[in-house]
């Protein structure tokens, strides 16, 4: 019974995209009624999350499953594929976006901005989630491109929300960089189609291998560059720390957690399904090393917590590329786990920074102090994900890095050893960066700060009871704190349930390297037996102009 239900759920996987899209349309129609808008948005996302959790259960019990949209047969129609990796990404991304949405909604209610441009926030946010889900489910390259465009277009709007000068400036960099990477992706799709006559990823997995090695390399690198820009891999990461921190706190949080990971997801698919083999693994390892080191050195130099976190974000993308470059099941499994861990931890840190900014008026460590005394709860909420990010045992960051390093050790080449050393150094420097924030913003006295923010001093005075009139300061709404705490708890849960999760992610990695489950789910059980002839055979291509 339960098996039939799970199999049925996988056969309607596109619901994960359709639900947020319909929710967005409804929320847009109801833009005059903020309360209805909020209910619809949160309801639509919760339903999507429930659906995706059952998809995850389905993928865990039934393995890889594919849906052919509109009843068109596999290599010709649009396929959507649910396997362990995509189901896990769907659940984690929607859970995180739901928490951020609750946080943003509570912030909106607390600030009383019931109308104005904020009325487009909720619909746009749902479109973003739909785009992300579409990218994770896409079984063909062009649908992946469409998924990317949906989420990017929504992110352009969210990043420039309100249209203030700094946001427009940051938005221009972000939009231009994203558009150029999308054009590269589109060109790569055109060339792949010209070379193979298909864009279905399972079909490509069979056909790309028959091309000349030089041509394969060109197509492979074009895809990796296009995805590398979105994933913010060095040297294509320069745009990220400049554009993310200017957006509203919840928007930065969801961007930091999710958008780069969609790029990483696409890179993983490229490496495992489309172009298997270790042709460019050394290149990937070098890129991973540079991504980690350059990013973290940037982070140490920052005074603003948001900018610092943006740099650690680009730095830790390096760990995911690390696992991809090492290229064995242990490392790829650890990458899958690390992506899930990093989405949750990075998002919760950005949310906590939003709370800090709200309580103390600033997110620059030069202007902060005494926060541990002012708000012990805030201190705990920062401390747990920060240590998690730095990879202190027993947190999930440590477990993920340990898994990556085990993969690296079992590879054992000189480059792998250098990469291992780089990963350890990056981990220590991350600890240094977050410890600096902790020491300065939370532990030292506010009077010792270079330039303490007036709101911080006023809040502290109020706490001491030294001000005669208790002025009503901006306090932290319980819902915002609750949403942040839920995410932090989810991060801790990754540690508690690390055993089964690692088993699951190793299974995902094994299936991705085998490729058979994916290709057979899309093209049918005899996909490998009979070679599918090229529809663009010589007599088909011929033809004269009129």
């Amino acid at each position, binding site marked *: 019974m339960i098996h039939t239900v799970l199999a049925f759920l996988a056969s309607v996987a596109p619901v994960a995209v359709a639900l947020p899209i319909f929710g967005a349309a409804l929320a847009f129609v109801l833009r005059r009624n903020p309360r209805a808008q909020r209910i619809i948005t949160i309801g639509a996302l919760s339903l999507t999350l429930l659906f995706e959790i059952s998809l995850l259960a389905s993928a865990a019990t039934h393995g890889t499953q594919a849906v052919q949209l509109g009843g068109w047969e596999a290599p010709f129609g649009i396929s959507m594929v649910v396997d362990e990796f995509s189901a896990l990404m769907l659940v984690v991304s929607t859970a995180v976006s739901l928490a951020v949405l609750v946080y943003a909604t509570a912030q909106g209610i607390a600030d009383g901005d019931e109308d104005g441009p904020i009325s487009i926030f909720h619909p746009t946010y749902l479109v973003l989630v739909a785009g992300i889900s579409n990218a994770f489910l896409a079984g063909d390259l062009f649908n992946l491109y469409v998924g990317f465009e949906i989420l990017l277009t929504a992110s352009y709007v969210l990043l420039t929300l309100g249209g203030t000068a700094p946001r427009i400036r940051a938005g221009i960099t972000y939009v*231009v960089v994203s558009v150029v990477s999308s054009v590269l992706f589109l060109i790569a*799709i*055109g060339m792949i189609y010209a070379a193979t006559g298909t864009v279905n990823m399972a079909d490509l997995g069979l056909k790309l291998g028959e091309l000349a090695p030089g041509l394969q390399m060109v197509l492979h690198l074009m895809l990796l560059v296009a995805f590398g820009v979105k994933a913010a891999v060095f040297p294509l990461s320069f745009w990220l720390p400049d554009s993310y921190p200017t957006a509203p706190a919840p928007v930065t949080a969801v961007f930091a957690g999710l958008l780069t990971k969609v790029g990483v997801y696409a890179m993983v698919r490229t490496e495992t399904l489309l172009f298997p083999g270790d042709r460019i693994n050394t290149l990937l390892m070098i890129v991973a090393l540079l991504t980690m080191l350059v990013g973290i050195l940037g982070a140490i130099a920052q005074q603003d917590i948001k900018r610092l976190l943006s740099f650690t974000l680009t730095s830790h993308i390096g760990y995911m590329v690390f696992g991809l470059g090492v290229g064995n099941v242990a490392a790829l499994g650890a990458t899958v786990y690390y992506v899930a861990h990093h989405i949750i931890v990075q998002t919760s840190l950005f949310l906590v920074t939003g709370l800090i900014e709200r309580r103390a008026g600033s997110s620059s460590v030069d202007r902060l102090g005494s926060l541990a005394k002012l708000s012990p709860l805030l201190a705990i909420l920062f401390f747990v994900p920060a240590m998690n990010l730095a990879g202190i045992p027993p947190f999930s960051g440590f477990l993920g890095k340990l898994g990556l390093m085990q993969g690296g050790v079992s590879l054992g080449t000189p480059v792998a050893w250098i990469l291992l050393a780089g990963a350890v150094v990056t981990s220590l420097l991350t600890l240094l960066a977050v410890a600096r924030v902790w020491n300065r913003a939370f532990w030292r006295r506010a009077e010792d700060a270079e330039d303490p923010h007036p709101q911080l001093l006023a809040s502290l005075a109020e706490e001491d009871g030294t001000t005669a009139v208790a002025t009503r300061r901006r306090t932290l709404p319980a819902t915002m704190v609750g949403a942040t705490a839920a995410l932090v708890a989810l991060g801790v849960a990754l540690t508690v349930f690390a055993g089964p999760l690692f088993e699951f992610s190793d299974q995902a990695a094994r299936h991705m390297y085998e490729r058979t489950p994916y290709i057979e789910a899309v093209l049918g059980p005899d996909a490998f037996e009979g070679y599918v002839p090229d529809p663009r055979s010589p007599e088909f291509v011929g033809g004269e102009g009129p």
Partner: protein
Amino acid sequence: MILAMTVGVLAAGGTYLLLQREMVRMVFGVGLLSHAANFLLLASGVPAWRDEPLVDRMDLAQAADPLPQAFVLTAIVITLAVTIFMLALAVLGHNDDTRRAPETGETHEK
């Protein structure tokens, strides 16, 4: 051949314009670049003239490949939306860094 050269010229012009400082030029650059990509997509089908790909009405051996055309249509729609958004950004943020560099605050007459 002409198609290939058109793609080349468009991509070169688009890249040049993208490297300019003014936002409107950059928007034109994006326009040219995505046109180059669209032509390239079209060229991945058969560039010669073929019949309309309508099932049951055409000899399938004579029909064009509908997929690249569908790709190009989708890409055009997306580019149109993004171009409009970028033009809006150009209006809102006009001249925001042609006279004053925001990081250093240095000004120059123009």
